[in-house]
């Protein structure tokens, strides 16, 4: 088992959203059925999707931020942020497939074949899965230089996530435009760095 080099408070930061989500789930199931509104499954799908997106943004923010404030410790936490992003993306998918579609495989398959926003979202999820399972020290050693190349998959994954959001939106693009600008700025900064170094 690889050491994840996580300080204890960092674990709390990672698990805090999950704890908050669990509190609301327990509240809904045992005390107040309206705690998550009239469509609690949809509310959970949205919630986990948003949390995953936030961790994706954090991951992309690490490199430029640590260059800016010279914080090496931040770089060491990147792996945990990435794994957390994948875990919340997985919860996003599980609540969609299990709670919304109730594991109706036929509907799941049809969505996956016919609905472009599902196709791009699922593809992004597969990329994150690949990155998560190769995030341990053993994989880093085994893959060598190829590991860095492989983990650049995070960029296309981020773009697919944004497309997923654009295609889910029905009329107001304010939120997705904000995330897109944020991600593009981070990518631009990397591109400038590469150009100047």
């Amino acid at each position: 088992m690889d050491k994840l080099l996580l300080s204890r408070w960092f674990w709390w930061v990672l698990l805090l959203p999950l704890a908050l989500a669990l509190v609301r789930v327990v509240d809904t199931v045992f005390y107040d059925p309206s705690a998550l509104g009239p469509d609690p499954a949809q509310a959970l799908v949205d919630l986990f999707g948003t949390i995953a997106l936030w961790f994706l943004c954090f991951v992309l923010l690490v490199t430029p931020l640590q260059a800016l404030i010279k914080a090496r410790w931040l770089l060491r936490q990147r792996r945990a942020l990435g794994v957390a992003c994948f875990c919340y993306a997985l919860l996003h998918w599980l609540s969609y497939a299990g709670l919304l579609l109730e594991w109706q495989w036929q509907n799941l398959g049809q969505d996956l074949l016919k609905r472009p926003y599902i196709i791009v979202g699922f593809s992004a999820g597969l990329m994150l899965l690949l990155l998560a399972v190769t995030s341990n020290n053993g994989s880093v050693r085994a893959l060598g230089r190829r590991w860095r190349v492989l983990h650049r998959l995070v960029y296309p994954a981020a773009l697919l996530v944004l497309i997923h959001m654009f295609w889910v939106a029905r009329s107001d693009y304010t939120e997705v435009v904000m995330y897109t600008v944020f991600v593009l700025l981070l990518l631009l900064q990397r591109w400038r760095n590469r150009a100047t170094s």
Partner: protein
Amino acid sequence: MKALITNKLTEHSVTPEAVYLNRRQWLKASAVGAAGLLAPSMKAVEVAPGDDPAPPWLQSQNKQASPSPFSSTEKLTPYEYVTGYNNFYEFGTGKDDPEKYGQDFNPHPWQVTVSGLAEGTGTFDLEDLLKGLAVEERIYRLRCVEAWSMVIPWLGVPMAALLKRFKPLSGAQYVTFESVYRPEEMPGQRSFFGAIDYPYIEGLRMDEAMHPLTLMATGVYGRSLPNQNGAPLRLVVPWKYGFKSIKSIRKITFTDRAPQTTWQKSNAREYGFYANVNPAVDHPRWSQAEERRLPSTLFASNRVPTLPFNGYADAVGSLYQGMDLTKYY
């Protein structure tokens, strides 16, 4: 009259309250024709909790609502969800935005401008517009294009009774409705990256507008319409997707051609003029074959099959005889 009621959906699996059930049976009985049982002073409407800020004349007109044989007998979606979870993009795109941001909207005093191919055009105070029209309670299924649905006890006047007041000319083939435009009171109308042109426009073919099921709603759950549900006046067309039922109506125009509606302008491939509920025609981004009847729970998503014309096919199917519904969606 009775032929218009088509309740193919079964009663909800959740056991309804005893009181509620009794009322339903009583309603059914009165609908069958035992009108004598129905003393005029008895109120059939569910009364919502809380204040009703509407002017007294509107409150009292709504309180005199009589039950309708067109009402569904399905379990009602609770008041808190009907008024706390809906789409009214003028107040924001979140489902709780209309309730949250709708409170600064001042619907009174209200006027409606009627124009176009009719004899009785002009601008009318809401009170004059509704004076003498009998308000009914109509419990209708509402099927959102997003594949969820509710059962809602509306109050309102039959659209035909209202429109006849303006004496439409024979050339009037369509009626266009326009919502209020008040960006200072409606944050969604100020949205910079919104893909919707305001004011919101909707329209019906004249025979659709005059159909007995078409309602001009003035209230819900025994009270006047809350701001978030389209105060003080909104359309309810139960066999069409919810977005056809335009809210907070300021203008009614009789025309000889179909208007371009707001959602057609926004995305014609996804939203057509007719927008009849149709399980056989998917939205390009999701299936319309099923819907989730709200409220659902975490472990029971309440999926039910969607019915053609939202279960009102017997009443309205003839309006679309011979039309290719995959083309005129």
